[in-house]
């Protein structure tokens, strides 16, 4: 089952879990499974039109899904999906 890594700013919406195992054959299916299990995550990942937000990057293992087949990217057993939102802190 693919594992989705949740970054700390979003863990308050995933029941404090750092990673969630979700079934799915594609990245899109796995992310849909994630937000159905943790509905509070939805508005942080998706815009109102149902598209993933532009400042939320999704990686399959170490590759940006924008350079794979985006949400149609097929998943293998043991793949890791990482959600990497932009952070700006520095002071």
């Amino acid at each position: 089952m693919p594992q989705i890594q949740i970054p700390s700013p979003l863990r308050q919406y995933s029941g404090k879990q750092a990673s969630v195992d979700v079934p799915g054959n594609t990245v899109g299916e796995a992310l849909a499974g994630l937000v159905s299990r943790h509905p509070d995550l939805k508005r942080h990942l998706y815009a109102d039109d149902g598209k993933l937000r532009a400042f939320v990057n999704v990686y399959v293992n170490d590759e940006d899904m924008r350079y794979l087949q985006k949400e149609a990217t097929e998943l293998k057993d043991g793949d890791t999906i990482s959600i990497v939102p932009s952070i700006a802190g520095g002071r």
Partner: protein
Amino acid sequence: MATLSDVKPPEAVLSNDEILRYSRHLIMPEVGMEGQQKLKAAKVLCIGAGGLGSPLALYLTAAGVGTLGIVDFDVVDYTNLQRQIIHTTADVGRKKLDSAADKLTAINPFLNLRTFDTKLTSANALELFREFDIVADGTDNFPTRYLVNDACVLTGKPNVYGSIFRFEGQASVFATEEGPCYRCLYPEPPPPGLVPSCAEGGVLGILPGLIGVIQATETIKLILGQGDSLAGRLLLVDALGMKFRELKLRKNPDCPVCGTHRTITALIDYDQFCGIRGQEEPVFGGLSLMSVEELKKKLDAKADIFILDVREPHEYQICHLNGYLIPLGDLPKRISELDSSREIVAHCKMGGRSAKAVAFLKQAGFTKVYNLTGGINAWADRIDTKMPKY
């Protein structure tokens, strides 16, 4: 980075005192006399003398970087000291530039330190960057992140990037000749308010140390022309799990600033780009504000007013206004605990989260709901000065 590594002006000759000082570098083949001279000839601009800027400036200075520029307009305060290790308790109230200058020149009197007591803006960034070889980004907000990136791309200077939040950090090197830039990674900033700042969300004190030292390392590698730089890779640091991971970064051919069909060829208005107008004002709930003075008056008059505290329980432990605690994230499922017929004033630490709570409650049909401007910090500043401020 060939152009940078080839630079070896004749004036970068080391004195005997410097040779002794840099002895541990000079006996390493990767640095040696040639590398140390490159360090001395190098000019690095550090944006910010705060959390990331502290370790960056301290290590670059100790390592023998010849010219260090620092841009900062801030003053040291007590909340800085938990992580901004270049400043001490005695420096509270001083300009960060003055405080940093004392420490840096004490560490290395050979340093040519250039301080810029100004906010980095679209009007001054290009001129400033042109005088340096490398820019190290230690800023704390999205508009300045995009400004630093674009100015680096436009002037052809590598951008040594680091950013932090709570227990997590990111580091990379952007805007090298062949590599991706920050906009290739994040084409758009998040809308204001969605991603909390360190002031709202907190940051572990050692985290800027970890990430700032990674930035210093990358800066020195670029100067020496040694090793594999983080260009094309994003390093993710999770201090809680103590895990370091890396992701591939690609140059986006459609990037508006460094791609093949560039639409951004000059600096823009970055506050507008990031959706920020005015300083830190909440974008919603604008008309339903209550000042701490108004709240005090109402409480003194024993008016019927319900104080809703939308902070986290661990913040309530620091200080509170005897409010009813429902953390912002729990509000949707606990809304039934609130009485919409009563006058409600919502507050958090500074007013950001409570603005969201007010907007949410208004959408849910509440009409008599107000946001306490400036949050409990404003109360501590102006009403109860004995209250701890955090």
